[in-house]
């Protein structure tokens, strides 16, 4: 049970990578990239958890209460923003690709090969 979250991490990563590799639609590929990123959120938050501790917000609890690790939460917050930025850029590329190539199938989006 203590390692179940980490098994979930590996599962989410696998699902995401499978999606990217077998995608026939660019937007699906981008969404699967988000799924890959989600596995890192679970990993980060899973690594910082302390059993029996509360959230690290001391506005209504005494200052020395045991709390979970705030650093991984801050890291996850940073990552969410980074991922949103990359996804937005990729979606803009997807729109462009549709206009230029007329299709969103990754197998057809090839101008230079070999």
């Amino acid at each position, binding site marked *: 049970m203590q390692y179940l979250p980490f098994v979930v*991490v590996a599962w989410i*990563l696998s699902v995401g*990578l499978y999606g*990217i*590799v*077998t*995608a026939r639609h*660019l937007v699906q*590929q*981008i969404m699967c*990239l988000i799924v*890959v*990123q989600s*596995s*890192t959120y679970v*990993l*980060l938050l899973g*690594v910082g958890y302390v059993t029996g501790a509360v959230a690290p917000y001391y506005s209504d609890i005494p200052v020395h209460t045991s709390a979970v690790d705030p*650093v*991984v939460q801050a*890291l996850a917050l*940073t*990552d969410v923003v*980074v991922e949103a*930025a*990359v996804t937005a*850029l*990729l979606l803009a*590329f*997807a729109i*462009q*690709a549709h206009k*230029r*190539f007329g299709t969103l199938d*990754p*197998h057809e*989006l*090839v*101008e*230079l*090969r*070999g």
Partner: protein
Amino acid sequence: MDQLPVLSVVVPLLVAAGLTACGWLLRPRRRLLDAIGIATCAAVVAMLAFLMTRVARGDEVYWFAGFRPHRDVAIGIDFAAGPLSTGLACLAAVMVLSSMIFSWRYFDEISTYFHTLMLTFLAGMVGFCLTGDVFDLFVWFELMGVSAYALTAYRPEERGPLQGALNFAITNSVGAYLMLSGIAVVYGRTGALNMAQIGATLSRHRPDGLVLVAFVLIISALMIKSAIVPFQFWLADAHAVAPTPVCVLFSGVMVELGLYGIARVYWSMFGDALGHRATVSSLLVVLGLLTAVVGALFCFRERHIKRLLAFSTISHSGLFLTGIGLLTPLGLTGAAAYVIGHALVKAALFLCVGVVLHRVGSVNESWLHGRARHLRLTGIIFTVAAIGLADMPVFATWLGKGWIEDSGNTLGKPWITVIFVLASVLVGGAVLRVAGGVFFGLGDPPREDPGMAKGPGEETAETLSGREHTPLTMLVPAALLALGALGVGLIPKLGSVVEAAVVRFQDEPGYNATVLRGLQVTHPVAAAPSAPAVVTLLSVLTGAGSVAASVILALVALYWRRVPVLRRYGLEPGAGLVGVVRGLQSGIVNDYVTWIVFGLACIGGALVLAIR
């Protein structure tokens, strides 16, 4: 003056934001925009050059927000500037400066975003070099990445840039997320994000699976970025289509930063922790040599000049990784010198290609044959840079290569020299073939690549072609860069200076003490016994020999149809590779990601089997 490390990152960021905020004011005033961009880059170069002189005496550690470490536990983020990292950051800034100067006349129309993105790219690169915190490394890695993806797709009215940008973005993002997983795993074990602290904590215990897995995950992103086989497929797609000044940056520094990252991550975090130096070294060397050969082969059969140069970057990336992977001071010294020389000559080559694009309007080697004869000065610069790329003695490239080979020979691995020469000859031959054919009209045009667009019309949207003369702002940077590679090779005692910096870089306990306790290490201990970085007769002979062989190969490639023997058997150099290369370099990102997963499984499996 203590604030120099910070200012060199913050100044480009602030100017980038400022340019966008005042976009409505600046858009009609193109020259002012260019001038601000160039001035900012020049300021960053000056700051980093000055910082380099300061850190020659001892690493400078800068703690953000004033949170100094307490009892060997770091609470804040630090910048740890050593001579090697600052030097690389300075090289990056010099490259961005030359690109900006080149773009002065190159782009007909530009929006504020080009300068903004170039400046954020610069800030990301400098931050990546200087940082001492592994999550901060990831943040600057992503900033570099996002700016690069946007810059690749800068000419979105063409189809090629989109394919390149998409493949680039998806593969590198997968890598970045794997790196983040590795950081999380390491954090789970050590509870630290500071590289020195992680290194100190990990080396206290015997290495186990977790350390190995974290290492592979973190360097996976860096290997993808530096285009090591089997993660290299995206690079040719992206380089071929990015605007020329941006290609200069990609080939000149971005790929090399990935390799620097591998060295940094290894020597500050995992060096002592992993142990098994010989195994890790063998892995890196094998990957490096494989990349060198694959890149060289792909390079030789390519007809699209920018893609040809991209494949040569892949090949050189492999050579650099071999130097780093030897895990000796001389190997890393050689890699550092080689990186400097390569950045300068590759930038000069790309700028010359940009001039050809500007004046003639094509990058198709077959079509361009003989058509750039009137671009005499450009031809001379291109040829000089090509000879530099072929590792001609006296150039910095030859110096670096010689030292890596020397280190390999000292370790009893003479096959490194053999493969280096092979890769060098193939790449040099390809680039000299381009020089001879396009700029001097020698021989016959190479066979057309049916997959490529013929004639002008390709890539003309970058710049209106057919101008009467080449502007000075395009020629002068190219010439200076090519001569710079020659000049760096002539610097006396370059070897001992770089090697001293490298020994300090590889001294893990010393680095930990400097960062966590503020102690300056006056006599760093070399990580491995190694020979001094001097010029040997063997390296002169090898260098001269490989240049000669490159010239011969280029001439054969140009004149083979006139030699009856070769014509009878249809032995065109490089013809047999066409099918193989085309099949692998499919342009489909699904394939690339499959290779990433497969490659990582092989690397992981190999390490597990070797270390168990």
